[in-house]
């Protein structure tokens, strides 16, 4: 029986495990379909730039009223995979971290004077604010963010689209 399992072995094992992990992680990230940029600035933009400059938010009551009059376009700023798990009924998906690549597919049919309501989830979520600023800069006049949108929409039992399995 080998009792020579010395703690010192950890000194070389830990770096080796980390190197192997990094090789797998970066390798898989390169070959997968939707490669994620290693040092993307989307989160930097969110956390550092214009964090509090955009204060145009909308109340859930007003958002619901625009919704029932079919007078606003809702845009979901969360990642597409989360959007697919459920979103405000009729909302379009424009994940903030893919906003620049995908925005023209999404906004091409929206008239500039249309009410646009962006949302994400959680009171600390800033994706919707960032997306609202982004869309304003593109020339949309009436963009507002619904704070804590997904949660508050559900709390008010307003219409949502869910995947088939959850209906």
């Amino acid at each position: 029986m080998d009792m020579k399992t010395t703690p010192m072995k950890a000194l070389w094992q830990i770096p080796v495990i980390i190197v192997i992990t990094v090789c797998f992680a970066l390798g898989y990230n390169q070959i997968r379909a939707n490669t994620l940029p290693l040092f993307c600035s989307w989160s930097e933009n969110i956390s550092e730039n214009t964090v509090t400059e955009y204060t145009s938010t909308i109340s859930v009551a007003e958002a619901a009223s625009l919704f029932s009059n079919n007078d606003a376009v809702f845009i979901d700023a969360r990642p597409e995979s989360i959007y697919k798990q459920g979103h405000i009924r009729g909302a379009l998906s424009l994940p903030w971290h893919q906003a620049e690549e995908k925005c023209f597919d999404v906004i091409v049919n929206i008239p500039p004077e249309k009410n646009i309501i962006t949302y994400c989830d959680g009171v600390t979520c800033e994706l919707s604010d960032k997306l609202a600023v982004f869309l304003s800069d593109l020339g949309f006049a009436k963009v507002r963010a619904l704070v804590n949108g997904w949660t508050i929409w559900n709390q008010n039992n307003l219409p949502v689209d869910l995947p088939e399995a959850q209906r």
Partner: protein
Amino acid sequence: MNIPTSLKIHHRISIIVRFILGAIFIAAGIPKIMDTAAFAGVVYSYQLLPGMLINIFAITLPWLEVIIGGLLIMGIWMQGTVILYNLLIIAFISALSFNIARGLDISCGCFSTAPGDIIDMDTIFRDIIILSASLYLVFVVFIKKIPASIFFSENKKK
């Protein structure tokens, strides 16, 4: 060679613990590998890392979980694996506690990247149970110095 019964018992328990803890990490890592972009969003919501590091962290951490889980189950490089496992669980508990303490209402991103699995005291409690099990492995590997091999018994001679 005679092996004390207590060591045999520790050895058997440690195999079960290794399988459970390894499976937990693999189950936690795979959904994050499948949807790294969503996991990056979860990492961002924790508001602990600088923006530039979020993607690289989100790409690497799930693989670290899966590889450590796999090594733990296979019983390879136990010293390094057990230390890394404990460090990761301690890091998870710290990140969760810190964000609960400052009142962030965020999703855990522990076993999936979906929203809704909100962090709370139950999450911490769950991680503390995992930590106590992984500390047991520290005891087995570093203090009792029991090898990970499943042949740690008289069966070895066959």
